């Protein structure tokens, strides 16, 4: 399959509340989780999706929500799911994967909802004050059910 990385941004725009990058195709436990090293990449990725999304909504005119689904470059494809609650689930994959929307849906409804939303130990709002909004947030999803579920689901798709 070849998934490279998985990112979640929340509605406090620019706040990346989860990132998981796989570095070795052959090893599904390689790579980083919620790493400071990914901060810059997260901001760039966020910026790219934000800009293209806002332009395409302007192009499609008043009163409709036209959501970006994929962005392809010469080397990779980004797959995006935007929820009405402002969450963005983003997967970066090789070009062979044309449509991973079902994977994103599963990540949202079977993993995020089950292990974050239905988990009373976890926040649903990861910005705890105004200073943590607008991309300045730093809190991440770290609960072990979520992390383990992501590994179990996406791990096999890494190679």
């Amino acid at each position, binding site marked *: 399959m070849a998934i490279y990385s998985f990112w979640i941004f929340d*509605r406090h725009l*620019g706040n990346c509340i989860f990132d998981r990058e796989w570095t070795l195709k052959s090893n599904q436990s390689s790579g980083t989780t919620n790493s400071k090293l990914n901060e810059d990449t997260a901001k760039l990725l966020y910026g790219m999706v934000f800009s293209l999304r806002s332009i395409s909504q302007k192009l499609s005119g008043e009163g409709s929500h036209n959501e970006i689904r994929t962005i392809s470059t010469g080397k990779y494809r980004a797959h995006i799911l935007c929820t009405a*609650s402002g969450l963005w689930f983003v997967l970066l994959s090789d070009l062979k994967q044309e449509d991973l929307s079902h994977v994103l849906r599963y990540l949202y409804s079977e993993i995020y909802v089950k292990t974050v939303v239905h988990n009373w130990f976890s926040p649903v709002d990861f910005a705890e004050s105004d200073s943590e909004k607008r991309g300045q947030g730093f809190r991440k999803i770290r609960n072990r059910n979520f992390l383990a579920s992501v590994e179990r689901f996406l791990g096999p798709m890494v190679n």
Partner: protein
Amino acid sequence: MSANSASISASSAGPKKSLKTFGDDIWKNKTAKINAELFTLTYGSIVSQLCTDFERDFKKVNSQLYAMGYNIGVRLIEDFLARTALPRCDSLAQTSEVISKCAFKIFLNVTPQVGNWSNNKDAFSLFLDENPLSDFVELPMDAAKELWYSNILCGVLRGALEMVQMDCDVWFVNDVLRGGQSTEMRVKLNRIMKDEIPAGED
């Protein structure tokens, strides 16, 4: 990234009839169910305990029910969106239809009537003919004057709407439990919370 306006507006949440069918279908097929009576009893026990805790200061009970509802609402919205995959609504009118035909239907299996629109269309009422929270409930005299028994619903709506960037006030106007003609919740949109602009982009 083609921009075909005609096909786009056709594919956005369609006429009222399809929302109703949509909501009904999810209730029938994608919902695990429990007996409503159990729900009524549980909620009743909670309200009762609050009345004891606050020594029948019903304003405080109302407030606490609202806060409880808010905390549920901010979570429930994700469950709702994951199940329905609905996009953000284009208007308050569409929002009212989604609340009535999808949200109330899927979670409580009731479909409140939407009505009593304000002149500038920024507020509407939900009329609940049936309310599983309050089935067979009778309020004692003092409570009937001040308690909004189902106030948790106001909090739930407020919390859920806030997560989709709608800053609304939600409150009860009338309740059959208090001797009113109907059970009526009012929803008023204060403002659409603009999507925050990332720092550095403005």
